[in-house]
């Protein structure tokens, strides 16, 4: 099923058009694809794409600075590339964008939890994930187990790719924010409790920060010890500060790929925050981040008719 992609990658590499093709390869565990860059034509055989790819591959472009690379992207990843270009982190001419279809990224932790045993094998069959392990074989409907961020995805397909691999993708028109609306309707006390329950699990490993393609700062505010913005330790105030300040930095810059949530070893639902950002930006400014590399960052421009009703 990956033949078209592999053929494309092989050709780009053998003609020397690019130094590497960045994407995913099979991982060592079930339901995991691992980031991979093919550097020789024969390595193109390893490239895969699909729901088992959890990170946002654009994160790895910073490791390939100065190299001509082709990158295999889904909708969110292509929008990230646009953002990186608009923020001068990437030159458009350095990347060749290969768009692949996307049916959403799998919420792997939820399958692991629901299966309840040790999964030793998994494969995708049509619209199902078939897993095998010590509790026997079970099938899960993919649509029910994709990341929450993917459920509210507005642009599942890559925007303006140089090369497009065809296949069935999600429908961006069907983006569903109903669970975010439910949280919006909560009272402040209920919201506080809801977020505390999620975020107090945080161990501050910063997997969410490191996996984020837009968290590219050389030094992060949480790491600063002069002055100390966020104290060490596990006081909830500090944990909350980290996550909320991170979100402030993300407004209009987050493509809501959900990679942070999938990266969290504790399974914290970070998409409640990222999806609210996406929803607010769309409602308040009719802005969707990363639609074009020419677009200025939402919070980097001022217009006299910007709405102000949220200013206290």
């Amino acid at each position, binding site marked *: 099923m990956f033949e078209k992609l592999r053929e494309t990658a092989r050709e780009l590499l053998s003609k020397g058009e690019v130094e590497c093709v960045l994407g995913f390869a099979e991982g060592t565990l079930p339901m995991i694809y691992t980031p991979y860059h093919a550097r020789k034509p024969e390595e193109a055989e390893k490239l895969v794409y699909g729901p088992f790819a959890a990170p946002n591959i654009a994160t790895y472009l910073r490791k390939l600075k100065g190299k001509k690379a082709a990158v295999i992207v889904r909708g969110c990843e292509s929008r990230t590339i646009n953002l990186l270009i608009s923020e001068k982190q990437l030159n458009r001419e350095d990347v060749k964008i290969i768009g692949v279809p996307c049916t959403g990224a799998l919420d792997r932790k939820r399958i692991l939890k629901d299966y309840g045993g040790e999964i030793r094998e998994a494969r995708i069959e049509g619209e199902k994930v078939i897993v095998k392990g010590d509790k026997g074989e079970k099938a899960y409907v993919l649509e029910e187990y994709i990341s929450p961020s993917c459920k509210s995805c507005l642009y599942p397909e890559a925007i303006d790719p140089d090369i497009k691999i065809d296949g069935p993708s999600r429908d961006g028109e069907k983006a569903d924010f109903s669970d975010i609306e439910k949280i919006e309707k909560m009272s402040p006390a209920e919201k506080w409790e809801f977020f505390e329950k999620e975020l107090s699990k945080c161990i501050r490993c910063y997997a*969410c920060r*490191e996996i984020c393609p837009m968290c590219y700062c050389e*030094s992060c505010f949480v790491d600063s010890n002069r002055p100390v913005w966020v104290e060490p330790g596990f006081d909830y105030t500090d944990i909350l500060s980290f996550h909320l300040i991170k979100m402030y930095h993300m407004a209009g810059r987050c493509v809501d790929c959900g990679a942070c949530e999938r990266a969290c070893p504790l399974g914290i639902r970070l998409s409640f925050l990222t999806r609210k950002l996406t929803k607010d930006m769309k409602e308040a400014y009719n802005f969707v981040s990363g639609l074009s590399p020419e677009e200025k960052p939402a919070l980097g421009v001022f217009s006299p008719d910007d709405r102000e009703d949220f200013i206290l």
Partner: protein
Amino acid sequence: MKKIEKEKLLRHLEEKGNLVRLDRARQDPLSVTKSSHLPQEELLLLFRINGDKGVEIRVPEGRGGKILFGVSPCEARAVDLLDLTFLRDRIDPYYKRKREDNVLFVLACNKPRSTCFCTSFGYGPFSGKFGDVFMVDIGDNLLIDPVTEKGSKALEGLELEEATPSDLEKMESLKRSAEGAITTVNIEGISEKLKKMFLDEIWADLAFKCVNCGACTYVCPTCYCFDIQDVERTNWGYRERVWDSCMFPIYSLETSGHNPRPTGVERMRNRIMHKFSYYPELYGEYGCVGCGRCIRACPVNFDIREALETLKEVEVAA
């Protein structure tokens, strides 16, 4: 070996003190056994400016020990490895107190996970030499064997039956099936080889997928790196110890601004070198127990088993 009904033993331990059950659910991703000895955040001392009297310092008292019931052999072995750092050349009083107060009831691992590779390190899911008491769940009963004096003391007052040959047979069969389910990585000679590989180009390849978060180090039962910080308030404050991770850029950042491990490549190299070269060199033991936690927690599927295989295949000049 002796045997006892599980409920009877639990009742006995409940009366004895602070019982922490680790046998009911898989201990994932964090190791409770590690954090019971080296908490993620630990208060070291409190200080206060008391008028003209100057600074008053108070060291908190211990909170008493816990009985950790159902520790897996790998985690108990990991505590033995922590001892090398905190009790061998320098004694860390905070660690020592917890180590002395806690009692470890180790439960043989009947159902290893697909990520387990403990048998690579010269022990296995049924190794009975770690912790204070060794137990095997044979279904209707627990087979039980004290390992240390502290363990024997914890069992005092209990009537233990002698295990029958059929009980032991059951244990042997469980052991065979558990060991059979584990993939061993042959790491023979790796520590010597790594010594010659510090400048090898393979590290850049290995580190490519790693994004340098701290997940692997925080879930690791043998990773012990910490940071000590003073938290200041108006006229008082406290000193605390918190986990730190060699994966973070500020871990090795020096005051001058120089960072000897400037990129993820050097940081990844350090994590592997520490466990598979420096630890054996210092202590004669690997700093990894093969529990597979880091493999399961990694957001990008960095698999330490695969990394070891790759390192083994690299050709180095003699």
